[in-house]
């Protein structure tokens, strides 16, 4: 018997990786390994169709503007239909920064060009004047509103994202800018697809979110709930606390 295994598609790891997306992947893999579970990683690049043996978790990170435009075209041409089917069928999606923008309906660049997205999140993004940059802290409904449900990270984006009726925010902004700097919302959740501007990267300092995603992914693969055993998260929690303190100090 091989260990229960999460199948992860990492989309465009070469083109979309500027905010240390590698760290998020390392956290997903390591937190499975620490529980003697496994990760099967498929890196999917431009021109490649989706692997035909399915996925439980899909990850897309952030890129430079030029790469993001190239990726948007490639997504539409080679992967969009399969990804939509997968995510609507209950697979887990994590879309960060530029990946978040591409998961929405559309993104309008500073030059006024509108680029279509995957449409798996009911959000729209328009490039704004100036970038929204800095430490950010959210209170997230996903954790039932407890203190442990804080999400900490760093944001750096020119896009202003607005939520449609079909998406909930990933969290309420306690410190920082969030989706658009106006409505205190940050990120988006539709079914088990998450989009967010938080990086730094996102998962190392927010281990509860990593475990939530992994639990969902295992459930998708095996059709039953998994009780993930708790890990020794002293370093993670120290880093989380330090990030909270820093955000409170700086603003």
């Amino acid at each position: 018997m091989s260990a229960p295994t999460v199948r992860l598609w990492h989309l465009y790891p070469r083109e979309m990786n500027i905010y240390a997306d590698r760290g998020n992947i390392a956290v997903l893999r390591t937190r499975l390994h620490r529980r003697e579970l496994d990760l099967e990683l498929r890196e999917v690049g431009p021109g490649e169709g989706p692997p035909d043996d399915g996925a439980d978790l899909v990850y897309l990170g952030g890129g430079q503007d030029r790469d993001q435009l190239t990726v948007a075209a490639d997504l539409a041409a080679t992967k969009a239909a399969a990804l939509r089917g997968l995510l609507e069928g209950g697979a887990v999606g994590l879309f960060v920064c530029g990946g978040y923008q591409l998961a929405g309906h559309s993104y309008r660049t500073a030059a006024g060009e509108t680029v279509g997205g995957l449409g798996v999140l009911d959000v729209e993004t328009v490039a704004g004047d100036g970038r929204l940059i800095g430490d950010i802290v959210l209170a997230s409904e996903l954790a039932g509103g407890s203190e442990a449900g804080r999400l900490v990270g760093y944001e750096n984006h020119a896009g202003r994202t607005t939520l449609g009726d079909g998406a909930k925010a990933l969290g309420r902004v306690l410190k920082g800018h969030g989706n658009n700097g106006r409505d205190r919302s940050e990120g988006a959740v539709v079914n088990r697809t998450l989009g967010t501007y938080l990086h730094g990267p996102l998962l190392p300092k927010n281990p509860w979110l990593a475990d939530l995603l992994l639990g969902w992914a295992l459930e998708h693969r095996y059709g039953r709930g998994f009780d993930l055993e708790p890990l020794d998260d002293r370093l993670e929690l120290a880093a989380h606390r330090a990030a909270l303190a820093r955000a409170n100090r700086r603003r």
Partner: protein
Amino acid sequence: MIAATAGGLSRATGRGGGTSLPGMVLNRLEPGALARLGGGLGGGAVCISATNGKTTTARLLSACLRAAGRDVAANAAGANLASGVTAALLARQRRRRAARDSTGCGGIGVFEVDEAALGQIADALGPRAVVLMNLFRDQLDRYGELEAIAARWAEVARSLGPATTMVLNADDPALAHLGSLRTAETDNVVLFGIDDPAVGRPELPHAADAVRCGGCGGPLSHDLITVGHLGHWRCDGCGVRRPQPHISARRVRLAGLDRLDLGVNGPGGAELELSAALGGLHNAYNVTAAVAAATALGVPAEAIGNGIGEVRAAFGRAEQVSLDGRRLRLLLAKNPTGANENIRCLMAEPAPLNLLVVLNDRTADGRDPSWIWDVDYEPLWDRLGSVTLAGDRCWDLALRFSYGGLGPARFAVRESLADALDSAVAATPPGGALYALPTYTALLELRAELVRRGAAHDFWQES
């Protein structure tokens, strides 16, 4: 008088020491000051810009020029905005006036120039040469600016007059063809690069940038990968490829943190055998760039060899300090490419290695230190003795190392730098080496702590 007081303020606040503020004050009072002072340089000016290596390359070129008997005006390390260059020229003019020399600044200017300030400074100085070495992914909260900087450098290329020599790194696909953008009717371009296949890396590091073709946007292939995304690149889509450099390092022998031997082919097939007291392949680029610039400025081969051989590590670039019977080596690591090159040097040092990694997130470091996830630390794990993690973001480092596969039992985390230094020294055997990898402001703090402990002298006194 105002300027002198402002200098004291800046020294207390950090970057560039007290050296930039008098220039900032003067530039505000007299907007044309930099052009006026630069006009007094009898030998013209050289501007050197890069994400990595501009300080060392400026020192190397200055040494070559001095070895040839030339009088050199240079700015202080890190004082590389218009204010820093102005301040350097101002100080020089004052010194010369005090010596009753009224011929202006005199000499030749060799200035390291911030990537974003190149346009402004080149405009004011009308330099004899502009040396452009690399554009690497820097601290992430500046990263949105990388493409903007490449675009600005293209503007600089267009605006340079025909008399200016462009010295360009053929191995950086973002820079190699900047010379062809010049509107001036001139072929005044010198390309440099590394042509030794023995120093290649097997694959692009995670921190690689500019993997796309500037012409057609297609992916680039590499026949040789040297540092970051630098190397022998080509585009299979449109056929653009690395041009053959005029000045080329044909043989590079790396010998740890302190030594580098190179065989450089100059113009007309002239061969230079060079030895530098600098370590690492990134320094092979710095030396080759300095040779290219010095050659373009007419420095004879013998002076180039002597100049290169004289230069010692710049502040925080593998400099060595003695502390409690241990040798402390300071290796500035301010971005993933720099950190990867440091690690490549460390792999050649005797194991077990004792490390002190210090990560700060202040303005001069970049507020977002998530670039540590793009550094390839993992090859170090098998060679480590002790590891101490410190700085504003010590817990982020702890997570990077832990998720990279180094168990938490194998490193210590210390929030205070003084504690970290105590802990790291205690974990290093007497007579052994402790390698410190600090970010920019962490290096300043560490250096201040070493001065406090009597282990180093105040670097503001150096120049």
